[in-house]
């Protein structure tokens, strides 16, 4: 047997730019003797180490798997171009970090599907790792390839490359999958997949078939066997306190994107923003208790040596005990010289008191996301923040000592007009004026970060298309012109990546061939400007008889079958339809903490043990 580790460390690593990201021996990395493990899992993040290591989901699954003695999880990331070139030149396979084991030698190879722009990278990693790209041509000895994360809610563009997908909370599904694999090593791939398909949250794409009529019109996706569910249901962790959470974070040597500890306060969000996929697919709201969070924080600080801890959630300010937690945890951590940060606060939850507390712990940057410039458009997207709320929050923040603020907006939202675009500028002016009202002299630093709205599956906007590229650019210019005089800094993310994202996010299996072509053309790490090639992607669509722009702009009819209809997020299509219609009428819906909107989560939660009522879903109790 080749000693991969010796060759990798002695001959390959000295030739690469940032070797520390490939060492795999960081503090708290788990290195097991794989020959003694019954199930070997490679957890792959299809991006660079610095991005992947910042991701909480990877840490959760890594510790969940490794906490079981006879299972092993190792990490693998996309190598940077210098290492990739060496691997290809030397025909050295892409290996896991911990024991330098080729990907092909694992039982299970799991990819996280965080964003569409990572899809070509997945194919590159499979190829580099010596794993067959097409699921149907994989041999018995090859790993089962599984995908999870937000992308699993419309995995059809990847259906040919994956043996199965896991929908929803993997803390629930993955242990069942691994236990099954441990007990059934003698079964063939096909037999394993058939059995796995019976586990809640597991979707085996080869067992489902899209149907088309004679004109090639999509009719829906149906199961191939009678005992398969017509709709695959998402898995849900009911009690987050009891769910696995890493007690140790792997501590990188070099600095990574989010180089700090992260505490997940809760999962889900009750706000109901209509563009937001996370707001749907992580329902219902489930909180960890302050006691549990404090216990976790203490342990994480002790085992990692980090000096910063971030409280993270979709909207951290909505945590029911936020003020108590920030105060108490802030005091405890300050004693140990650890700073507390709150990266995702909503404007309206940023009260004067919370502003004071957050300032005490750390004066980091403040980021708020009004998303749209006018009240009308905010009503369309159901971002329930009024202008008064925003200005109030900004004034509080300035009074508490902040001198800068970052505002996130989207352009291209359904029903948007130039008035809405220019409304962004009007709002920015008012935020700047609030600085003076707060008694500060001079001008605040205001950064306006603008991205293009990309419709996603399982949201009320899933039927809407992206506006054409030229129109996006025109609105971007309108905004840039009108912002110029304000002195705010304008950050624009470009339209091409959003077009691609939109084309991939709502497509079906016809995109598998496109992604394969793109990978062959060398596409990879498309989230990085320096690697992203729009030309190559356009070529890949063209080579398969498709048009990227057309697919990005595609408008679905409300009664048209959608490529992800056979996957159940827990939220019903009837609810999404109603929300879409309300949006077009610029009518808001309430926060579902205040009033149950009947989204359907109660049906999914039926029969789940939730006697403590920690899963905050009024829906579940109103029925």
């Amino acid at each position, binding site marked *: 047997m080749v000693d991969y580790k010796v060759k990798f*460390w002695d001959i390959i690593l*000295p030739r690469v730019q940032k070797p*520390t990201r490939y060492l795999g*021996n960081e*503090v708290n990395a788990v290195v097991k003797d794989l020959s003694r493990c019954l199930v070997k899992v490679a957890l792959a993040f299809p991006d660079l180490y610095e991005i992947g290591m910042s991701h909480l989901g990877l840490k959760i699954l890594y510790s969940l798997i490794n906490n079981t003695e006879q299972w092993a999880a190792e990490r693998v990331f996309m190598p940077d171009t210098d290492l990739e070139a060496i691997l290809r030149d030397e025909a050295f396979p892409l290996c896991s970090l911990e024991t330098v084991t080729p990907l092909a030698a694992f039982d299970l190879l799991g990819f996280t599907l965080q964003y569409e722009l990572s899809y070509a990278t997945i194919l590159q990693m499979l190829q580099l790792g010596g794993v067959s790209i097409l699921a149907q041509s994989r041999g018995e000895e090859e790993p089962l390839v599984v995908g999870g994360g937000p992308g699993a809610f419309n995995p059809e563009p990847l259906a040919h490359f994956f043996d199965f997908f896991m929908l929803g909370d993997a803390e629930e599904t993955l242990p069942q999958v691994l236990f099954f694999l441990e007990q059934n090593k003698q079964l063939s791939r096909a037999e394993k997949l058939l059995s796995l398909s019976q586990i809640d949250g597991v979707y085996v794409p080869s067992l489902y078939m899209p149907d088309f009529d004679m004109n090639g019109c999509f009719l829906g996706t149906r199961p191939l066997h009678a005992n398969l569910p017509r709709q695959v249901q998402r898995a849900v962790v009911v009690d987050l306190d009891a769910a696995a959470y890493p007690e140790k974070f792997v501590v990188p*040597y070099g600095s990574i994107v989010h180089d700090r500890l992260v505490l997940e306060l809760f999962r889900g969000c009750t706000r109901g923003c209509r563009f937001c996929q996370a707001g749907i697919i992580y329902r219902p709201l489930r909180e960890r208790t302050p006691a549990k969070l404090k216990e976790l924080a203490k342990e994480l*600080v002790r*085992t990692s040596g*980090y000096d910063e801890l971030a409280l993270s959630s979709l909207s951290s300010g909505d945590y029911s005990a936020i003020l108590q937690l920030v105060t108490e945890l802030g005091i405890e951590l300050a004693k*140990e010289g650890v700073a507390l940060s709150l990266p995702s606060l909503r404007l309206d939850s940023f009260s004067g008191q919370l502003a004071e507390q957050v300032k005490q712990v750390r004066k980091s940057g403040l980021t708020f996301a009004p998303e749209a410039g006018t009240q009308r458009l905010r009503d369309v997207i159901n971002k329930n923040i009024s202008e008064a709320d925003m200005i109030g929050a900004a004034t509080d923040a300035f009074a508490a000592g902040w001198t800068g603020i970052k505002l996130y907006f989207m352009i291209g939202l359904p029903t948007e007009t130039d008035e809405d675009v220019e409304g962004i500028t009007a709002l920015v002016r008012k935020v700047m004026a609030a600085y003076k009202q707060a008694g500060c002299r001079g001008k605040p630093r205001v950064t306006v970060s603008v991205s293009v709205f990309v419709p996603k599956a399982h949201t009320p906007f899933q039927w809407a298309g992206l506006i054409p590229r030229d129109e996006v650019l025109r609105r971007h210019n309108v905004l840039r012109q009108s912002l110029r005089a304000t002195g705010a800094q304008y950050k624009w993310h470009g339209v091409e990546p959003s077009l691609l994202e939109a084309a991939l996010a709502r497509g079906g299996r016809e995109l598998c061939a496109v992604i394969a072509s793109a990978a062959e053309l060398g596409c990879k790490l498309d989230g990085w400007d320096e690697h992203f090639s729009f030309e190559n992607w356009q070529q890949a669509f063209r080579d398969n008889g498709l048009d990227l722009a057309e697919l990005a702009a595609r408008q679905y009819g409300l009664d048209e079958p959608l490529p992800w209809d056979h996957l159940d997020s827990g939220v019903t299509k009837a609810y999404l339809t109603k929300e879409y219609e309300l949006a077009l009428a610029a009518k808001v819906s309430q926060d579902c903490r205040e009033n149950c909107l009947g989204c359907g989560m109660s049906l999914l939660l039926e029969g789940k043990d939730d006697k403590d009522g920690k899963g905050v879903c009024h829906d579940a109790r109103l029925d």
Partner: protein
Amino acid sequence: MMRVWIKFAKESPMRFLSHLDLMRVWQRAIRRAALPVAYSAGFNRHPKISFASALAVGVTSEGEYLDILFDKQLDGAAFERLAETLPHGLKMVDWRQIPEATPALMSLVCAAQWELPLQADESRHLQEAVQGLLSAVALPVQRERKNRLKTVDIRPLIYRLEADEKESCLRMLLASGGEGVVRPGEVLKLLRLPAVEGRVHRTELYVASGRCFQEPMAVLLN
């Protein structure tokens, strides 16, 4: 307050760490061991930890030093805790308490000892080259600094140079701080040896004590 010098080894698995990475690794290890490092005063507080001498990426060493100021007097158990929490490949060799007013170790270090294992065919013809270097009156080398070339005579900065045929290794004692700095690569180039980074190994740092060199752990301080 307690001021401490720590001697440590940076072995092969850690040789790829940059100076900055290494500092972060130590800071986090010290926090894991719950040792109370003193912080500088002011707005941007930083922990009072410094290295005696930077080490190039890719080079291993058994003679690295940290100079740390703690807020409290610590016992041996505290340093055992620290040694245990270091990542694989970083080894604590020794520690000593020093008077608080001692100048920074960085400013005291004046020489470094290096070793380079030789291949069999290299050591034979090397004796002559070493003798040639040592008998030279001057050894001018060119250095680039801020895009300008500068010529430095490194002969007076080479304190010792020997090719050990029996152990087939090259040993060098070179100025490092104090009178100047000689990089091992510069000597290897003059000896026409390929400067493979993975081969060079630092064995010790020295501070001047009167007219002698002494290891930091042994030097008398007052």
